[in-house]
């Protein structure tokens, strides 16, 4: 008999602006850095990071679920990309 154990997978979703989309937030942060003594920093991009536990039967299952909700809600595909990755697995 095959049994699927549903466990919680810790998933991280990073949402970033797509290449070519203006990022005034990242640009403003970058401009502030030299005044604070941080030189040589370029290409600063601002984004959002979401962390969640997802009940799933496998890592693939968890990533698929995360990808679906990231594309449906967490990101706006017109201007943003979502990057989904696994954090550490926690049994519950």
């Amino acid at each position, binding site marked *: 008999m095959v049994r699927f154990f549903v466990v919680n997978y810790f998933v991280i979703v990073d949402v970033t602006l797509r290449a070519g*989309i*203006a990022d*005034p*937030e990242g640009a*403003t942060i970058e401009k502030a850095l030299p005044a604070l003594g941080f030189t040589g920093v370029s290409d600063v991009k601002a984004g959002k990071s979401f962390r969640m536990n997802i009940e799933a039967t496998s890592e693939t299952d968890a990533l698929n679920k995360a990808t679906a909700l990231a594309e449906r*809600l*967490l990101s*706006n595909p*017109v*201007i943003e990309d979502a990057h989904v990755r696994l954090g550490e697995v926690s049994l519950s």
Partner: protein
Amino acid sequence: MTRIGVVVFPGSNCEYDALNGVASLGAQAELVWHSTTDLSGFDGVILPGGFAHGDYLRPGALARFSPVMDAVRRFAEDGGSVLGICNGFQVLTEAGLLPGALQKNRGLAFLCQPTTLVVSSTTSVLTSRAVLGDELIIPINHFSGSYICDDPTYDELVTHNRIVLTYKDNPNGSRGDIAGIANEGGNVVGLMPHPERAMSTLLGSEDGRILLESFVATSLATLSR
């Protein structure tokens, strides 16, 4: 009498301005809670400004899943007149009823000021009574009002006269100075400026009247055709 529904999301805050604006033009205006699933009986629907669902995640991102939005989609598909003002415009783009997206303003400033708009198309429910090239003084009040879209979308908007209003002096970095656009049929319009706040010279401008007059008049004409 034209019946206009003004949708209220948790966090909307311009619903009474919109309500009073169209009511002052003789329309029968009613507030509609966002859990409503039936918009029958209305000639036009307005999604007002504010911070629907707190603008959490992105402006409009959660509002697009409010029950009323399925009804708004059907209403629009049936040719009903839909107007999204400011946050309402953001909701319409998130819902896919209008193309593109609204990004944070260039310069990251919250902008609250009068702007001069140019009427760029009169083939929409918002501008049907306006005169092409006319300049209107209408206030803006937003943080994420920079209109953005890809090249094919922009070409489509230009080619089919779907850019209805442009800024004379672009305040927020919008592509092509876009202040408002329409869908393919011209019956769904979104704009960042607030015509409902420009209804009386006492308050600085009454240039919003011609826009809401167009919307009220065209709403009735559209559904009773």
